């Protein structure tokens, strides 16, 4: 089964090479090869995750190895989904290397299947984790979209363009991708937090115990809630959206990894 994960990794790496090459040589054929290997990698990765589910007997998002792997799977999937409606090939040149690195990290970590801790044995496990991680991966993508937006916007404002920026999608397209990320990612994140709280209520007897992970996920949620509210009411678009998306990304990063490594707490098995 591990071999399947390695095949997926190889395909992601091939895709990375093609996308980096595409950065240097602006040829459709190279991009198509990158796209094809990413898609194949995604499919193999998905199948191997299903295998792991059947082998372990539980949803494989219970430790750092499993969640990083699931995160890269979701990023690949959402990027492929966005590519269907936008011409954003150039984004592949940062997103594909990034998700490959995340996946390498996942495979680096011990991947043996261990019996599930009793507290995690619940039907809430798949619901809570899948929603939370899909939400996270969508916001990870929008982080890179925002970086592209800010660099292009800066070029237009200051009237100085880097050669690569001529291949970026327009500001309007980047902003509308961010808007889409927002409108998909936020519901996932919200449901992830609510189901987590319900699960906590059943497992620990208290819906909300201000554990660091809970607190930080609430902070993340508030960042995105402010953004959505202000976008709809007073038009926080463009640069403001991009800045908030970047802030939200770091907040997710801290919630997901920072807490585990620095703080600890109830969620420390992840």
């Amino acid at each position: 089964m591990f071999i399947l994960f390695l095949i997926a990794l190889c395909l992601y790496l091939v895709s990375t090479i093609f996308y980096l090459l595409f950065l240097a040589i602006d040829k459709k054929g190279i991009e198509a090869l990158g796209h094809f290997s990413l898609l194949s990698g995604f499919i193999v990765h998905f199948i191997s995750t299903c295998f792991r589910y059947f082998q372990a007997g539980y949803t494989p998002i219970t430790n750092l190895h499993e969640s990083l792997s699931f995160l890269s799977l979701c990023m690949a999937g959402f990027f492929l989904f966005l590519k269907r409606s936008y011409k954003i090939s150039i984004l592949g040149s940062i997103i594909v290397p990034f998700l490959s690195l995340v996946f390498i990290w996942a495979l680096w970590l011990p991947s043996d299947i261990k019996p599930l801790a009793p507290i995690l044995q619940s039907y809430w496990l798949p619901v809570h984790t899948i929603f939370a991680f899909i939400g996270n991966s969508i916001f990870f993508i929008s982080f890179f979209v925002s970086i592209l937006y800010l660099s292009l916007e800066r070029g237009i404002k200051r009237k100085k363009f880097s050669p690569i920026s001529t291949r970026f999608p327009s500001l309007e397209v980047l902003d509308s991708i961010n808007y889409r990320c927002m409108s998909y990612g936020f519901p996932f994140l919200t449901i992830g937090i609510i189901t987590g709280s319900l699960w906590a209520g059943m497992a620990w007897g208290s819906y909300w115990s201000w554990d660091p992970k809970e607190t930080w996920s609430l902070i993340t949620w508030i960042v995105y809630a402010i953004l959505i509210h202000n976008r709809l009411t007073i038009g926080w678009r463009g640069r403001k959206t991009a800045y908030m998306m970047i802030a939200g990304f770091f907040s997710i990063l801290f919630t997901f990894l920072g807490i585990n490594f620095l703080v600890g707490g109830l969620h420390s098995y992840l």
Partner: protein
Amino acid sequence: MPIAVFGLNHNTAPIEVRERLFVSEETIPRLVRELQESGVDENIVLSTCNRTEFYFSCKNLDSALDKFYQALSRHFSIEKEWLEKYTYLLTDEDTYRHLFLVASGLDSMVVGEPQILGQVKDAYRLATDCNTSGFFLDKVFHKTFNVAKRIRTETKVGYNPVSISAMAIELAKKIFGELKDKKTLVIGAGEMCEIALRYFKKEGVGDIYITNRTFHNAQKLADETTGIPRPFNDLQDLLEKVDMILSSTGSERPLISRELVSVVMKKRKQKPLFFIDIAVPRDIEPSVNDLENVYLYDIDDLKELSQQHLSDRLAESEKARSIVDEEVKKFSQWLRQLDKNPLISNIYEKVEEIRSRELKKILQKNKNTDDETMKNMDLLTKSIVNKLVHPHVTMIKENGSPAILELMKKLFRLEDDDEQDVDSWHKG
């Protein structure tokens, strides 16, 4: 058969001289016929506002040149000495090297400008209509179109825009992406506005509103092009509605203040606004650019960008020049091949190859043929082939005109790759 070009351009002659030698499209047919009568075998006249060039081919250049000059000075009624002072004469390889450079925009005032290729095509068409272009110039011009196309696809020499209107569109695309659902406002009714407006329309920009302090002029411009005229008092409403604004008025003080734009942006819920201010003094307060989601380019910004694009084009033109060198070399080789002697031996080689192959096939099928029959079959096939080829070879020997050589090459399928190149262009 020598090919040559004689002419002048913006580098060799001042505008007063270029004006005198300008030939309009209507007079070109008469001129090419006159020149043809002066004794050249083929000729094509290319005339644009920056250059007038005569491409011709003749058997003996020295003797033809004198008559050619005479015909020219007669047509333009100018002194022969004067013609020599501002002009250049290039022959053979230099001729088509020059034409390749001209057609791909490398010899133009604005490097990489695309119109010149169309003008070269027109010149060629006019000459073909008058039957003054023949075998050689046909080949040279077809090859030229080929080279120009190759340069356009393989280099970025014509890639970045340098005109004001084209740069405005380019920038707008960076901001908005698709422009067909975007609205534009043109403030002013002068010549610059009109040029920009026509260009925007051509580029498929959505609704275009025109406003001007003298409403009558806005209406006139709208009638001449296809905009929607609006009174100047509607300015704020218009700013709320449109996405792109081009302003070029004679106003001494700014028409659009930072406060106004700031109010408008709130009403627009921060939807981006793109201002192009090509007026001097400026129509839009420069600090408007500091507002969020507002982008302002004034005439100096555009000029600077244009300079930069131009230097990018110059850098790319090195690449284009090496393509020209490569193509010149290939074309010279091809011209040399038109020599008739190698052709005859090529024909013999080709038919011998076919004959021996077919003979071998037959002999393989009938393995028990005796030596005597084999020898007879060999003699028979040889004599048939020689009798069939002989008239062709005689024709080449007696009348080695390029067109005949070309025809023979086709008949015996002796074309090389380069040749097929030219042909495929011709069909396309």
